[in-house]
């Protein structure tokens, strides 16, 4: 075989050869273009002359689509896109979220020199790595499906966003490269400066991942509240104006936090799965601790999530009152009741896990008495939240009820009552969380009593404030004050959470740590860890559907009309079935990933000494 042939088969040389060909091709293309341009200029022909016919508003605006612009493949195009898009979003949320907290866990391991954190972070990444390829496959499928079934809509979006989609593609390459380097260099860059380099890679990975999320969000929010275009769809602004619509940042914040909560819940389920299937004490201890950390992440991200959702909804109302009313006062309003059931399930499951987990330490006996009160508030809050306002009733039922609303329960159906319920449930969940964190510690600071007195005062005043603001401004003053009062409630809840975290960080500095029996938690508590991701997944399918369908019969609200056979908001039952199908499909795929992650396992679990 000639020498040059063998040379080219070597990977390094092959790479340089391919690169050289690309560079030569690029230089040649540039030279041809420049020559063509020179020829045109010398012959007196300008670019303007070449663009014919002249540019009019119709030719660059949104197309007017008709039923024939949508290919018929024999099944509902909307349902196909629904399933693929939702599955892609679930996986994308998971793979973008996991590296966010993995870097933090790795950093904790590096600063505390506790090897357990590093091992756990690595194991979390292993789960997300398999999910990453599925995300990419689903993303590719979604693009094909959209271009096939909604070509007019996609052509318009491509014209509006232009080369921004190439930036997205470039970032996707960067994300893949960084992800694989970050995962596979874990052992090689495990000490000294190498570890800091590895952490930097993790930071870069997250910067790229978050940029991907924000770009994809701009497509979704453009279809709901378009900016940078006229009503006819003519692009008037630059890409920045198009991206920076009124809903972009609220959705960015909401999805960023929700992804972390969702990712935490998913890895929590993995830990529960491994805990229940483990046979040795060491394995059980390891996965119990992993489940505890995952739940910690999920609950911490869950607590501020309703406020981000509230901001998004406020901006939707501000952009279009009609759109807001469609979401919360029209056909979709019933889905908010289903949302209440799901969030109630999440809060009950998360609290139950915290209470079960407290029993790992003898120190938890100090707080046993309060749990029944927390449970009482959670159940009452849940009942208020699921109370509907407007019922669909027959004339007989209205006569029996004495009106269209129940005379006692009717007032519980409106927002002020629900705001009180939600905020009290969140305060109680934080209380469970705080007690859980304290259960294996004894404070050694001299001002412990004063600190506890202050914390109790904050809880008490915040609870009274939430109830007072809801009742007084919600029922006894002008409607205009209701929204302002809800801000008071949100601030009160956040005040409790932030002051609790700060106070405990000072009070439990140098605290005496009581022994924890990792691995001896009840098996029942692990089912709470399963309930969390199931409810989270369902909730994302539900509220994602609400967010998307508020556009009604528009592809791009107020700009591009939907003329497909599915240009209507489907019945609640149909939508419910679709969400359930997608949720079940996703969970089956996740089980497959867990199974894959368990193949070829070589990890030596950490053995808890205490």
């Amino acid at each position, binding site marked *: 075989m000639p020498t040059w042939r063998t040379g080219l088969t070597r990977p390094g040389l092959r790479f340089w050869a391919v690169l050289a060909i690309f560079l030569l091709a690029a230089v040649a293309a540039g030279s041809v273009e420049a020559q063509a341009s020179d020829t045109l200029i010398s012959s007196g022909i300008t670019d303007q002359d070449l663009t014919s016919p002249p540019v009019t508003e119709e030719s660059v605006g949104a197309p007017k689509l008709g039923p024939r612009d949508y290919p018929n493949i024999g099944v509902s195009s909307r349902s196909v896109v629904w399933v693929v898009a939702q599955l892609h979003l679930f996986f994308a949320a998971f793979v973008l979220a996991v590296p966010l907290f993995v870097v933090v866990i790795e950093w904790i391991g590096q600063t505390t020199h506790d090897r357990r954190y590093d091992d756990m972070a690595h194991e979390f990444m292993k789960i997300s790595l398999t999910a990453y390829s599925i995300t990419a496959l689903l993303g590719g499928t979604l693009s094909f499906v959209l271009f096939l079934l909604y070509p007019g809509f996609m052509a318009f979006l491509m014209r509006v966003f232009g080369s921004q989609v190439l930036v997205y593609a470039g970032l996707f390459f960067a994300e893949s490269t960084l992800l694989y380097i970050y995962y596979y260099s874990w052992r090689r860059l495990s000490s000294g400066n190498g570890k800091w380099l590895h952490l930097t890679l993790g930071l870069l990975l997250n910067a790229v991942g978050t940029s991907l999320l924000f770009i994809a969000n701009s497509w979704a929010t453009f279809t709901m509240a378009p900016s940078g275009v006229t009503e006819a769809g003519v692009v008037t602004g630059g890409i920045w104006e198009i991206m920076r619509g*009124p809903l972009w940042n609220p959705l960015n914040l909401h999805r960023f936090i929700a992804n972390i909560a969702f990712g935490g819940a998913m890895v929590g389920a993995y830990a529960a799965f491994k805990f229940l299937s483990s046979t040795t004490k060491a394995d059980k201890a390891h996965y119990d601790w992993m489940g505890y950390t995952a739940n910690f992440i999920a609950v911490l991200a869950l607590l501020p999530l309703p406020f981000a959702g509230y901001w998004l909804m*406020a*901006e939707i*109302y*501000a*952009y*279009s*009152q009609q759109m807001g009313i469609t979401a919360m006062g029209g056909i979709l309003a019933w889905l908010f009741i289903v949302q209440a059931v799901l969030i109630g399930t999440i809060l009950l499951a998360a609290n139950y896990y915290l209470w079960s987990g407290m029993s790992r330490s003898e120190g938890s006996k100090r707080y046993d008495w309060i749990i029944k009160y927390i449970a009482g508030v959670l159940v009452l809050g849940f009942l208020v939240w699921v109370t509907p306002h407007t019922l669909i009733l027959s004339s007989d039922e209205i006569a029996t009820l004495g009106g269209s609303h129940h005379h006692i329960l009717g007032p519980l159906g409106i927002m002020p009552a629900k705001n009180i319920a939600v905020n009290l449930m969140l305060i109680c969940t934080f209380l469970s969380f705080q007690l859980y964190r304290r259960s294996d510690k004894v404070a050694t600071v001299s001002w412990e*009593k*004063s600190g506890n*007195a*202050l914390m*109790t*005062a*904050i809880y*008490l*005043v*915040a609870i009274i*404030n939430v109830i007072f*603001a809801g009742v007084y*401004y919600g029922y006894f003053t002008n409607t*205009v*004050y209701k*929204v*302002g*009062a809800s*801000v*008071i409630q949100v*601030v*009160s809840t956040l*005040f409790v959470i932030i002051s609790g975290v700060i106070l405990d960080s000072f009070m439990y500095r140098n605290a005496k740590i009581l022994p924890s029996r990792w691995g001896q938690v009840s098996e029942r508590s692990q089912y709470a860890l399963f309930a969390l991701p199931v409810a989270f997944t369902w909730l994302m399918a539900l509220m994602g559907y609400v967010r998307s369908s508020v556009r009604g019969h528009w592809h791009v609200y107020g700009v591009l009309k939907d003329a497909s056979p599915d240009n209507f908001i489907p019945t609640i039952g149909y939508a419910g079935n679709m969400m359930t199908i997608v949720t079940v499909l996703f969970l089956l795929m996740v089980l497959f990933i867990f199974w894959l992650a368990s193949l070829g396992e070589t990890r030596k679990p950490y053995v808890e000494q205490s």
Partner: protein
Amino acid sequence: MKERRSLIIWIVVLTATAAVFYAIDQAIMAGQGLPLNWILQPA
């Protein structure tokens, strides 16, 4: 005696906390424009 002193301190702390919350409430309701402009004056 010691318990009584603790109770008094706690009441003082409670009152101070309530005062802080009251001030925040008043600031929010006085500055209605902050959140309400989004709702009442849609773009």
